[in-house]
């Protein structure tokens, strides 16, 4: 049902994360089918229904405890099914949180029975919480993938192999059942969907672009003009004003045809229709519908204007003819650039015109550029052209003329940007939207722009003297161009003998036009020429400039095609070359857009690596897989490519290759995994596909590079608690610490310390680290290391320092000193970690005295001034234990000039974490009466009061704490009441977090000394809530609650007394 759920079900646009299923008829049908399916499985397929899911389905249920029947063991807090396997229950329901976990179809069916009328809602909740239920039921290797799905085949193989026969067979049957359901769901949803086709903004925009490029004066155009009434476009793609969008309107158009009056048209989600036209002397439109609704713009216009219909058909014919023409690369080589250049400038003038609304259009262009697919390649060609232009200039003109030209270009650019700013903006916008290029630019992690800049700089430096090889290479390229196959092969072999690693040779090949020829050779039928050409390309593509040229010349597209070849040598070479070229963003994108990722993933599929006697063919296959992994490694630096690799089913294949024992295979595989581990889906897969074990094993490898990648993968994956535990279970912590012994390899050190840092988030791991005597080593690394190492080292120390023994050890090894020194640093990430580490250390009183003597608290305090909210929060958290443990904390705090005002003003921040941390710190500060007086003067009371409406539990807890502490001064209690802080505080008692209850009860107790507050509380129903809380086992909470109630009661009694007097 995976495909049906992702594709057919209508999710709300809540974005990524937990989406909501919309309550539409389609979804209801889907849900009903799924419910039927669950019941069907449990009644007709008892064996499959008893199959235990790989991971339980987990969601928040609204079921009442009383609904559960005799099949369950019901206790006060949980409901557990009596049916269980190995002692763990198949159904587990925690009453307080409402979280329910179910592990078999039997239990699911039972639950649905219990739920009765609520079954629809329960199913909905379940599916919302488990977006890909199949992955949970059968394991992540069955996760819904797009395109080819090999999971079935793998399962079949498992069945064949005979181990765990019955298990796999049941799994298989279940999988078949689920797929059947999927088909059924898709079919029903298809029927539903096909009934209602609605327009969307994108469709209209495409139509508009198409029509605009074909309209203008003249007989042969389809329209005289077509324009939007409004240039402003909302972020949802609509141009209609918001109050009209409510009615489904998308935009309004003014269309001048050749044979009718001006048409005023409304495009709405329901379709296209005529509206009342413009109101005279204003820009408003009469929105009422006049005439029929048509399904889209083209149909509408065909109906209204006969000239339109005629000309459109003619242009369509032209288009098909045009499409056939430009196929052979070789022939158009010389003519194309000029055409393209013309087209480019023409295109540009288009954009200038566009904003002025008066469009003087050139006659319709023969070139068509409407469809999505064509747009990127078109742009690409333009780039190619501009590049060719450049390289030609390089050759023809002397070097000193070059900068002049660039300067001219730049000036031109500037004029454009200043004069027609809006026009440029719209130009860019259009390009951004045209393909996926725009989003790609945003989604990339690496610092691409810098890289690009560097390349450009270098390009201009070169070309000073021509080396001796230049002429030889020119000659060889001449033979490449004008020779038959035999001559070509000889020329290729001779070219290979040049020192292809030297930059002068690489650039010489480029400058004499060798790249074009080499790429052209790839497009021939001759295997030998292709092999020879790729052998050279593979070498020279190590040069960044060459990479760029190759990509711009369209080499990647051809290489991606070669991946389909049956010749394994060719596949290897092509993949290796792609690996070299795909080091920059646009190349990676090109590979993806031409289906390269899918093909590269396909290369990974080879024989199990562990079998001993491999024949020559199998060895080749493994080599192919290695090259594929290399290419994927390069490609995996782009976010979208990571998704593409996953969707093509790359994860299980990578997991398989990870079992290899050869370093040259492992490095690219682990490299890819490490790169992809920035995505949570990969982290999950790495955990569930047992890859952690292999990663840990390879930490002991000989190769430092491999160790580095493994450590880095663990660094990224150890964000997950389960993974952290796995690393410990596979004895990975020891090897990680051992990696510290190679202090010269900074990359390795950074990766290893990072992995230790993340692993130390689990206290059990800290325990292990304690035994491994990690503290001394870490403290040793605090001095003289680059920042990326320092960040991780300090992070690790911060996590480890939560253990009291380690806190002491840090002091004993002299670690406090360097830590406090690091507080003066400038790197944001480092500062966040340092403040945390210092804060943890300050919990120990002896440590605190050292920190005090080093003036650490002042340094922490000054970090509150940093604009970065992470640092502010982290510093404020660290200040809390400092104040608590410092000897004369009050005096110390007062000694910071302007310090109190600074921290109170941080309450104006809009970052929840900052607010919570500052509240916590204020609570500590308010312990000192004099300081409390100062912060009261700085207006802490109204500020705290204004924050009380928050819904965040952490903030609520610390806020309530701060309120409780601030009550103790002057008439602050009254002030809180006047500022309306009381009523929201009462509602905190409804939260589920016991820590919030405790802090709130204390705050309410303090506030209840003021009679007016008592009245407010009473009005908000505080008594019942507090009485409930008195059941708690927390004595502080009980006491505070009781105190509060007694204050309220006393007021009531006094009141009564007064009345009877």
């Amino acid at each position, binding site marked *: 049902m995976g495909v049906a759920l992702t594709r057919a079900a209508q999710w709300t646009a809540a974005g990524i994360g937990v989406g909501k299923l919309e309550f539409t008829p389609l979804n209801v049908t889907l849900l009903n089918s799924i419910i039927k399916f669950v019941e069907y499985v449990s009644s007709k397929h008892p064996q499959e229904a008893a199959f235990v899911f790989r991971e339980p389905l987990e969601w928040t249920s609204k079921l009442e405890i009383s609904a559960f029947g005799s099949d369950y063991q019901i206790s006060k807090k949980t409901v557990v099914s009596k049916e269980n396997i190995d002692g763990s229950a198949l159904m587990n329901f925690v009453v307080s949180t409402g979280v329910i976990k179910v592990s078999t179809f039997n239990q699911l069916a039972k639950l649905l029975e219990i739920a009765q009328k609520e079954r629809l809602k329960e199913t909905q909740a379940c599916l919302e919480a488990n977006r890909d239920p199949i992955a949970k039921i059968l394991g992540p290797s069955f996760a819904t993938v797009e395109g080819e799905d090999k999971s079935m085949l793998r399962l079949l193989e498992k069945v064949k192999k005979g181990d765990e026969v019955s298990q796999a067979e049941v799994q298989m049957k279940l999988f078949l059942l689920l797929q059947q359901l999927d088909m059924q769901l898709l079919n029903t949803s298809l029927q539903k969907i096909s009934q209602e086709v609605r327009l969307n903004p994108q469709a209209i925009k495409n139509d508009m672009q198409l029509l605009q490029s074909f309209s203008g004066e003249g007989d042969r155009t389809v329209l005289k003009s077509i324009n939007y009434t409004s240039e402003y476009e909302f972020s949802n793609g609509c141009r209609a004003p918001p109050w009209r969008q409510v009615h489904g309107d998308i935009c309004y158009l003014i269309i001048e045809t050749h044979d009718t009056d001006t048409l005023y048209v409304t495009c709405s989600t329901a379709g296209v229709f005529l509206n009342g036209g413009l109101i005279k002397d204003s820009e408003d439109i009469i929105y009422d519908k006049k005439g029929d609704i048509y399904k889209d713009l083209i149909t509408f216009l065909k109906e209204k204007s006969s000239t339109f219909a005629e000309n459109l058909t003619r242009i369509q014919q032209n288009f098909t003819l045009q499409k056939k023409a430009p196929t052979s690369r070789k022939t158009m080589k010389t003519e194309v650039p000029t055409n393209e250049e013309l087209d480019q400038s023409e295109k540009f003038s288009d954009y200038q015109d566009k904003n002025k609304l008066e469009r003087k259009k050139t006659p319709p262009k023969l070139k068509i550029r409407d469809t999505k697919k064509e747009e990127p390649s078109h742009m690409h060609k333009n780039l190619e052209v501009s590049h060719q232009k450049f390289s030609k200039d390089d050759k023809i003109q002397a070097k000193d003329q070059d900068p002049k030209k660039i300067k001219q270009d730049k000036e031109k650019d500037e004029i454009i940007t200043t004069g027609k700013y809006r026009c440029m903006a719209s130009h860019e916008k259009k390009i951004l939207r045209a393909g996926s290029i725009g989003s790609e630019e945003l989604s990339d992690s690496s610092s691409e722009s810098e890289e690009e800049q560097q390349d450009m700089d270098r390009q201009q430096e070169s070309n000073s003297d021509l080396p001796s090889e230049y002429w030889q290479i020119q000659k060889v390229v*001449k*033979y490449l161009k*004008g020779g*038959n196959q*035999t*001559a070509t092969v*000889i020329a290729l*072999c001779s070219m290979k003998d040049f020192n292809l690693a030297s930059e002068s040779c690489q650039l010489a090949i480029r400058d004499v036009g060798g790249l074009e020829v080499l790429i052209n050779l790839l497009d021939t039928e001759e295997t030998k020429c292709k092999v020879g050409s790729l052998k050279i390309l593979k070498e020279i593509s190590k040069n960044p400039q060459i990479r760029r040229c190759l990509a711009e010349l369209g080499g990647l597209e051809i290489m991606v095609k070669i991946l389909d070849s049956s010749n394994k040598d060719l596949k290897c070479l092509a993949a290796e070359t792609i690996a070299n070229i795909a080091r920059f963003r646009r190349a990676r994108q090109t590979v993806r857009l031409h289906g390269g990722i899918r093909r590269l993933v396909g290369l990974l599929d080879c024989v199990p690596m562990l079998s001993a006697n491999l024949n020559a063919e199998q060895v080749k296959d493994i080599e192919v897989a290695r090259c594929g992994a290399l290419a994927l490694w390069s490609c995996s630096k782009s976010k979208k490519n990571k998704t593409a690799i996953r969707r093509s089913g790359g994860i299980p294949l990578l997991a398989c290759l990870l079992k290899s024992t050869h370093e040259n295979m492992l490095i690219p595989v682990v490299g890819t995994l490490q790169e992809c581990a920035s995505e949570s889906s990969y982290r999950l897969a790495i955990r569930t596909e047992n890859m952690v074990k292999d990663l840990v094993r390879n930490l002991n490898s000989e190769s430092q590079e491999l160790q580095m990648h493994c450590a880095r993968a663990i660094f990224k994956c150890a964000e997950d608690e389960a993974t952290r535990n796995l690393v410990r279970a596979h004895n990975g912590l020891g090897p990680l610490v051992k990696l510290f012994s190679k202090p010269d390899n900074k990359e390795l050190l950074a990766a290893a310390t990072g992995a230790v840092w993340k692993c130390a988030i689990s206290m059990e791991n800290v325990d292990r680290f304690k035994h491994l005597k990690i503290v001394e080593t870490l403290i040793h690394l605090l001095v003289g290391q680059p920042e990326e190492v320092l960040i991780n080292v300090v992070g690790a120390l911060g996590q480890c320092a939560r253990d009291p023994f380690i806190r002491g050890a840090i002091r004993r090894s002299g670690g406090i000193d360097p830590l406090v020194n690091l507080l003066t640093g400038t790197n944001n990430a480092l500062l966040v970690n340092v403040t945390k580490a210092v804060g943890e250390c300050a919990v120990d009183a002896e440590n605190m005295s050292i920190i005090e003597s080093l003036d650490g608290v002042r340094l922490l305090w000054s970090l509150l001034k940093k604009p970065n909210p992470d640092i502010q929060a982290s510093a404020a958290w660290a200040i809390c234990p400092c104040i608590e443990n410092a000897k004369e904390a009050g005096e110390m705090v007062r000694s910071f000039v302007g310090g109190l005002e600074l921290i109170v003003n941080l309450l104006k921040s809009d970052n929840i974490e900052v607010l919570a941390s500052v509240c916590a710190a204020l609570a500590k500060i308010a312990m000192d009466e004099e300081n409390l007086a100062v912060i009261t003067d700085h207006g802490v009371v109204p500020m705290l009061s204004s924050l009380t409406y928050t819904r965040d539990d952490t903030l609520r807890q610390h806020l309530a704490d701060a309120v409780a502490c601030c009550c103790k001064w002057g008439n602050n209690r009254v002030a809180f009441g006047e500022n309306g802080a009381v009523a929201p505080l009462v509602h905190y008692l409804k939260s589920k977090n016991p820590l919030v209850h405790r802090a709130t009860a204390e705050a309410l107790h303090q506030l209840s000394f003021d009679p007016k507050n008592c009245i407010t509380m009473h009005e908000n129903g505080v008594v019942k809530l507090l009485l409930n809380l008195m059941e708690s086992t927390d004595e502080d909470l009980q006491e505070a609650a009781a105190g509060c109630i007694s204050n309220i009661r006393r007021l009531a009694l006094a009141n009564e007394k007064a009345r009877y007097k």
Partner: protein
Amino acid sequence: MSRIRPLDMSRKQYQQLTDNLCKLTKRFNKHEVQCLMKVFSTLAGTFPEQRVAIGLDRNKFRNVLHTTFGMTDDMIMDRVFRAFDKDNDSYVSMREWIEGLSIFLRGTLDEKIKFCFEVFDLNGDGFISREEMFHMLKSSLIKQPTEEDPDEGVKDLVEIALKKMDYDHDNKVSYTDFEKAVKDENLLLEAFGPCLPDTKNALAFEEQAFKKSKGE
């Protein structure tokens, strides 16, 4: 079986020939040998009286090379014929046919090196000389009318090839040189002209030859 047996041989003779040929090469199984024999018979079958006794003459064989294996260079095809025709009787016999094809279709690299060297060594003196190279590469470059010496490019190409392959610097390429060069860079196997079928043609031939008779 009897249908594909050449008419002028008894069943027993035919069996014996098949067995002998099978022993000759390990690369083909019995069925494949029989198929190839049949292809041979069909090719040679234009003159019934000559069938097995003599075999394929030069023209017929060249025809096969051209149509089936896509070779075009006359000189190279001539040389391939000579390489097939081990006993120099101007006919490719059944035995030579099978032996030749075993290298052609399934030869190891060493065998192919040997075969190619034989082809390229035009005068059979054990060396590929400058002149021989020039002869073979003569038509490999497109002649540009503007150039003063049309052969200059070819001469240059010969020098390049010689520089690449002549390890012992005696201005000619010996078998050892050739072997070393090819092992170093496999692309040089057919350095002076295509004399082996490319993978596609070879596969097509095998498929056609072996499948046709299987169907019968």
